[in-house]
């Protein structure tokens, strides 16, 4: 009888599923590699570094280096990046009521990419700290351009027109990026490797660089989960119900774009995570963002860790760029979502 009397929240059991999935993915991601390292050794090494506790196992110092310097930072980076890409996609989908919305769609990724490419090409040495900064600038410029174009009378003022504007902006920025690369062919290899998307292996510094941005942006988007549900009835009705539509949308877009830019600045272009993860979870939780978002945050990270395991192991010792792996998985998925949204099922 009182079954329905609650706010739409995620049941405890599903919270634990999310947490368990993250832990399992993290463990597998650190165990699997060129050399298999047993989970007990991994746990021992992690406990030693974090809490100073030695467990009764015999992890070697080589293993220690592999785990602590190489694999774990990479897994943690994958968790952060996957999480923010999926959450941003989920937030864009909610605020634009468009199932195909993704950091790509608004030109955010292209803008971040152009920003970073310019930084690589125009700076003499690889100035590492400049990269995220240039990415942020590019992403915010792109989203600003998309937003003002989408709201101008030029293309109308609906959510759909905003997305069309995003596609136009993305094409323009990609063209400019190609031009920049062509003019600087000596550095093209470096940029090329970056564009395909890679999870950096420069130890903990990348994690430290992006984690604060990603945590803050995720927290902001998390705070807007009820608002995203209100958006689902469309701008006009949401406004008549008392939602300051423009302000709320701006906050969501800025947080999602900033988070995306942070991710892009260290990993390059990793696409489709924002489409694959939220839509898979929708199948289980329904469309309420209050149920969707906690699992998207968890499984976005889990998904990217597994994509990274695939990229490292399938052609070992060679590595497939992770952006290629997600694109191979994501393109068919994109068509699937496109097909079901044509039937009017996803909104």
């Amino acid at each position: 009888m009182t079954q329905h009397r609650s706010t739409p929240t995620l049941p405890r059991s599903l919270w634990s599923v999310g947490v368990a999935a993250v832990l399992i993915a993290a463990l597998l991601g650190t165990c699997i590699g060129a050399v298999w390292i047993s989970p007990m050794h991994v746990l021992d090494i992690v406990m030693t570094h974090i809490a100073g506790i030695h467990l009764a196992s015999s992890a070697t110092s080589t293993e220690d280096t592999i785990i602590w310097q190489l694999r774990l930072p990479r897994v943690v980076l994958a968790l952060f990046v996957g999480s923010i890409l999926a959450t941003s996609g989920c937030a864009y989908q909610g605020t634009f009521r468009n199932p195909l919305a993704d950091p790509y769609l608004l030109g955010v990724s292209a803008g971040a990419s152009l920003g970073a490419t310019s930084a690589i090409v125009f700076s003499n040495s690889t100035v590492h700290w400049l990269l995220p900064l240039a990415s942020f600038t590019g992403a915010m410029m792109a989203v600003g351009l998309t937003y003002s174009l989408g709201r101008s009378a030029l293309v109308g003022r609906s959510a759909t027109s905003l997305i069309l504007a995003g596609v136009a902006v993305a094409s323009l920025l990609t063209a400019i990026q190609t031009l920049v690369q062509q003019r600087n062919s000596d550095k093209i290899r470096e940029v090329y490797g970056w564009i395909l998307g890679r999870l950096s292996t420069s130890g903990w510094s990348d994690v430290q660089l992006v984690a604060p941005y990603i945590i803050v942006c995720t927290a902001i988007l998390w705070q807007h989960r009820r608002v995203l549900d209100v958006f689902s009835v469309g701008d006009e009705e949401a406004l008549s119900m008392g939602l300051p539509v423009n302000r709320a949308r701006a906050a969501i877009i800025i947080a999602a774009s900033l988070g995306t830019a942070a991710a892009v600045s260290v990993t390059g272009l990793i696409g489709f995570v924002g489409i694959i993860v939220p839509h898979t979870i929708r199948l289980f939780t329904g469309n309420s963002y209050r149920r969707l978002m906690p699992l998207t945050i968890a499984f976005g990270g889990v998904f990217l860790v597994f994509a990274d395991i695939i990229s490292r192991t399938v052609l070992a010792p060679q590595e497939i760029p992770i952006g290629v792996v997600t694109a191979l998985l994501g393109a068919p998925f994109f068509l699937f979502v496109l097909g079901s949204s044509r039937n009017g099922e996803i909104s």
Partner: protein
Amino acid sequence: MTTLAVNSLNVKVNERHIVRDVSLSISTGEWLCIIGPNGAGKSTFLRALAGVLPSTGGFTIDGNDVRDLHVRDRACWIAYVAQDPVMPAGMKVFDYVMLGRTAHLRLLASESQLDLDMTDLVLQELGLLAFANRDVSTLSGGERQRVTIARALAQASPIILLDEPTTALDIGYQQEVLELIDRLRQEQKIAVISTMHDLTVSGLFPDRLMLMASGEVVTQGNAHEVLTQDNIGKHYGARVRIISDERGPIVVPHRENPTNS
């Protein structure tokens, strides 16, 4: 008692002047129905009152300018049900009705126990408790209309705007929904402004009618004053007969000398 007053309101959409110099005043407990041919500006006028379209001219509630209010405060005064409301696939009736509580929540807050109770009360009031867990996109026309009205009630605003609340409904559901609106406005002292296409029905329930044509108010008054052969002939371009009935005028289409082949 709350009084909404509109004085010489104008609405322009893309430079087109859709609503011209409309004035009206309505207090809680009253029901004003706007009628008029297609394209008369009825829906545009309601949307302007709901605050989703910009307008110029006087627009006050109890003497306070509505345009000075924050969107949330305005929504606490005025609720709006669109002609064809979006029913998000996968959303439960309870969650949908609770969206009406948005006006009473700070932007980033979650619903409190009060909001849950209010939603529950409204569902109970409208006999929708059994529907609480249904997906809103699977409801029939009549259920859907009750659910959207429930959402507007959960908003707890003294003024409710209903755009064509009965258009998609068969005659049985039409009466059910209209009786419901009538009961609510009397019991809960709500001011209702609605638009309607069925002229006979519009003479039965609302206590005042306002006839709009080409964006302007042509005439207003009670049903007998507004629903005349003359008015309907002139503004709808329709041939009708008016049958006088003590409950209200009955408007029936009329055909003169059908040509037999």
